[in-house]
């Protein structure tokens, strides 16, 4: 298990809490490696993330590609307003829509 991702699973759901404050060239590899452990519903939690650059976006796209191939659902949780703006600019939100923690509760 990566020390950059804290994993939580219940039923078909995996919540991957990103514990690195930066999703960048340094943390990208460790984050991307987790895409192989996706569940039918996978949620990336950005609550501790204060910075994402394009190297980080590339790492997140590994999850998008894997989810599409597997028919899994991928969501983003606790995305800051700034990162919502960046995700909108590159249209990440189309492939990794936001989910509220309260919506996740129904799966627990």
């Amino acid at each position, binding site marked *: 298990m990566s020390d950059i991702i804290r994993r939580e699973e219940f039923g078909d759901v995996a919540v991957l809490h990103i514990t690195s404050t*930066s999703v*960048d*060239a*340094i943390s990208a590899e460790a984050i991307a490696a987790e895409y192989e452990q996706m569940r039918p519903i996978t949620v990336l939690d950005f609550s501790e993330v204060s*910075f*994402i*650059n*394009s*190297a980080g*976006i*590339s790492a997140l*796209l*590994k999850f*998008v*590609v894997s989810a*599409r191939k597997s028919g899994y659902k991928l969501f983003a949780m606790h995305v800051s*307003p*700034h990162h919502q703006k*960046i995700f909108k*600019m*590159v*249209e*990440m939100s*189309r*492939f990794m829509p936001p989910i509220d923690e309260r919506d996740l509760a129904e799966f627990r």
Partner: protein
Amino acid sequence: MQRIELNIPSNPIFERVVRATAAELGAAFGFSDERVEDLKLAISEAVNNAIDHGNQGEVNKLVAVVFEIDGEKLEIRISDQGTGMEGHDVSRHVIDEQSLEAGYLRGFGMYLISELVDDYEVNSSQKGTVLTLRLYRRSEQP
């Protein structure tokens, strides 16, 4: 004019040093929190471009970052020690089905830079590439 210069080896860990400097400088310049985030991201992309594409990741080659405050203007010049680059694609680059199918998961950097700064220019020669970013202080920050 006030000037700060950093020279970092071509190792992505040092991009974080430049980013931290940009954050402090942007805040001191009076940018809003959101604009500081824009500045950090634009500089991060520029420095990573210089490391990866300019210096080809050769750690002994330096990336020079010069911050200059001149009145209402903050100008940042990012220089590499590469051999120049042909073409800089700043066209709108978004995630789409075709690029995902093709496994093309990169290439957002220059597009993001072009969207996040007030203006920029690229000068490239066989002696390397200089990317200049300019942001202006606004009376009403977005």
